[in-house]
């Protein structure tokens, strides 16, 4: 069975048919064609599908789509302001953090959500906060460096207001 699901995606109202047991990841990728959240495990382990739901990072493969009714979902597509990348995106790129890039959209969302809550973290806090996002190519080290650099303001101030909040 399927039902009509209405929610806000990157600030825009969307309406889509969602299967009763579909995950939010299924609906974003298959229903709406937003392929930036990646499917790495479909099991809540890898974090490649991380999006921000009402201000909190979640693994969208563990969220039943219909529970997102009326909520605010932000994917990496909603971060950049036109051509102007979010500081986290710039930091990741310039620090060479992504390698194959498959974990990157999820990593960006986890980092953005984390920095919204903790704008001046320690390295250990960054590692703890991102530990649910697996990366197989990289050493995580450059991701940590990039998040720390963002927190130091190396790539400009974080945008006002928390991403994906209602």
């Amino acid at each position: 069975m399927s039902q009509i699901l209405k929610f806000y995606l990157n600030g825009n109202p969307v309406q889509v048919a969602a299967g009763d047991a579909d995950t939010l990841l299924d609906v974003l990728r298959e229903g709406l064609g937003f392929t930036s959240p990646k499917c790495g495990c479909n099991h809540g382990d890898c974090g490649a599908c991380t999006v921000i739901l009402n201000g909190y990072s979640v693994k969208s493969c563990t969220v039943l789509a219909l529970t997102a009714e009326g909520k605010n979902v932000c994917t990496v597509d909603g971060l950049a302001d036109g051509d102007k990348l979010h500081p986290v995106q710039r930091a990741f790129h310039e620090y060479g953090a992504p390698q194959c890039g498959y974990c990157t959209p999820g990593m960006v969302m986890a980092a953005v959500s984390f920095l919204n809550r903790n704008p001046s973290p320690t390295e250990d806090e960054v590692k703890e906060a991102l530990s649910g996002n697996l990366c197989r190519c990289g050493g995580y080290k450059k991701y940590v460096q990039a998040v720390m650099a963002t927190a130091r303001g190396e790539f400009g101030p974080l945008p006002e207001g928390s991403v994906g909040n209602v």
Partner: protein
Amino acid sequence: MIKKGRGMATVYYPTGFNGGGDPDLVSLRIKTDGTIDMTNASCEMGQGFKVVAIQMAAEALGVPETLFTIDNSNTDTAAFSMDTAGSRSTYIVGLAAISAAEDLTKKIKVFASASLGVDVSELKYEAGKVFKASDPNSAMTLAQIGAASTYGGTFIIGVGGFLPPPGPPRDPETGATIPSRSMAWGSTVIDVEVDDETGVVEVVNLYDCYDIGTVINPLMAEGQVDGGDVQGIGMGLFENLSPYFPKNIDIYASNYTDYIIPTFMDIPKHSEIEFIQSHDPYGPFGAKGCGEMVTNTQAPAIVNAIYDAVGVLVESLPATPENVLRLIDEKNRAETKAG
């Protein structure tokens, strides 16, 4: 109690396919505005192939890397690549790119010779410009050549390839052959902390020193090394699809919950990388392969460090808490017996 230990490992690794004979081709095409299309069908899987290939072609042509696009996307349009494996891409694609750049400059000179009315032997190519050696004002830029050749009905495309010389057939009795002319080298020191009550091992410090010849792009090379360290730690401490093998393989890992790979929290607190100054006589600009060797030292260095910490030798990977604790128990039993 937490016991500290230090271990090391030293390795070397061939660049390219075992025994050579694995060619790659590169094409370089000038467009009407002087930008350049490079093609080669190697795979970008995170190692940074594209940017490294462009840097080598840019170096060979003496132009900025911003001029390039690269197409590796399909077997209809991208030049042949044997495979993206065996730590071969930088080396073989680089040499193919140098060869393609030479071909391109030769063709540019021929074209410019007709356009400028100057004999080819009097022309020089440097940094994106062809000019008369005795009169540098008599010159054409890549943009001028691209436009004039295309609209003049001349297709200028530099092509080149490289074939690592095939080794002699392996002697079945002695095994003698030449797996590769270029070898990369490396040493790693690892400090661990072992909890001798639980067998849990933590990698605390990690120091890598590698010789990968000329480092074409340190940002990408560091990424390879960082990633190699993490995969090496995974191999050393965690990864095993069927821990009860060879008794049985019916208890197995089937997802990332059960197949444990390192997370952010499992990387060393402190790690350092150094590349030593080196120049391979055969490699492009002195470079050698890097991709695989960088995941070879960690497992043995960890196992050696565990021995240093608690005096037990992990002879079967991975050094899971369980394996380490069993060995500690055996050692303690043996010592008690010996009295």
